[in-house]
């Protein structure tokens, strides 16, 4: 992914508000929409004025998350990031924060990302596991 100047886009995801995410979702569902059609596409609880949608799109454009092209008097918008790319960046951010421990009181991961367990230790644990399985089979 490159920006207008040809440089690569930052890997960090700017913070997105709930309306910004709802607009991105509408653009993933149907690319190339004007602000007006996006207003119609937003789910019922998200209904807001056209100017709110326009300023949300302006913010998304500044964050380089949407493309826009002028068609007649109106801009037509499309997402620059696929849903999976956005998720990748989101998760990348989560994993980075897990390494620093800043998410400790809000998130429990199955295996701690910050845990630096070496390959030899994993091999030894695997051997121990096989031994236990064998013992269990003999017991049964």
């Amino acid at each position, binding site marked *: 992914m490159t920006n207008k100047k040809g440089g690569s886009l930052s890997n960090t995801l700017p*913070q*997105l508000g*709930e309306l910004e*995410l*709802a607009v991105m*979702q509408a653009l993933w569902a149907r690319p190339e929409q004007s602000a007006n059609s996006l207003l119609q596409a937003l789910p019922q609880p998200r209904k807001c004025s056209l100017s709110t949608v326009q300023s949300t799109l302006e913010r998304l454009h500044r964050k380089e998350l949407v493309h826009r092209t002028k068609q007649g008097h109106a801009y037509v918008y499309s997402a620059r990031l696929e*849903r*999976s790319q*956005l*998720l*990748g960046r*989101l*998760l*990348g951010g*989560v*994993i*980075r924060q897990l*390494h620093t421990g*800043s*998410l*400790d*009181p*809000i*998130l*429990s*991961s*199955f*295996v*701690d*990302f910050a*845990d*630096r*367990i*070496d*390959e*030899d*230790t*994993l091999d030894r*644990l*695997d051997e*121990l*596991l096989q031994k*236990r*399985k064998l013992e*269990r089979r003999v017991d049964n």
Partner: protein
Amino acid sequence: MPTLLSSMLLCTLFAWLLFGIVTAKSYRWVQPTLLNIDPDQASKLILGWLSLPPLGALITTAVMYSPDLTQWLVAGHCHNGSCQQHGPQSALAIWPTAILASWICLSIGRCLLRQWLSLRHLSAELSRAGRNAGAYVQLDDPQPAAFTLGWFNPKIFITTGMQSACSDQDIDCILAHERAHRDRLDNLRLLTAWLFTAPLPRSWSTAVLDDLRLSCEKASDLNAAQVSSRESVAAALIRIARLQRPASPAGSLAFAGTQTERRIRALLEEPVVALPNEYVFASVSTALLVILVIINPLHRAIEFLAQVGVLGS
């Protein structure tokens, strides 16, 4: 009245600091026991241990400023010819105490707000970007990750990368483990522990908080083992640890004795032994007795510090 309130607040802060030092220094004596008992019980006891400084400080203050109790606990003495029962008071401590208490409340509030905003933002973004699969939210991403996010109504997230890299049995173990975190409200437990220790230096509580997290993980592992078996959960842990190794940031060091290793060894080697209730009762009684015994020296110490000017009198 302001003098009394500021003196009570100062006493609470002083006792919190004192109990914080005592619990930090004496943790190494109780740590081996806590790490070798039933992890569910251990997580409760560790949280209890971390609550000792703030709760102990509140109980101490309540007792120290209650005339009915101090007559039994504080040796009679007089100040400026008045020999009535009293709590230690320091007229000039109002401003330093108010500033210190405000600073502590503000720093805790700011950290809490930052965590809450971070949680709200992350939960909203991941929930919207993911797909609701009933018991969990599926994230369409190749990175292997599974986690529980939130305090009061935690949500489970699992990536398609994790699902495709693991067997059905592994996924069952992972989901059972994360469900246990959700049902036990482990994130809320960790937040509470973090709040109990917030006003004290972080280095005093690092080991205890690490052990609390380890106990929560071990308790969730055992819950998952009830769905399958201890060996299945250990196998899933080894597989995921191998998968997540490439996600380590460049320059990070790998070493043995990590929480993951201790969890796997606990599953494969340790029987679950619960500490008898008599021990728990005896520990709580001892803590209360200690509080009652130190009321007199603490009263005298605060009055001495106030007299020499350290506490502002």
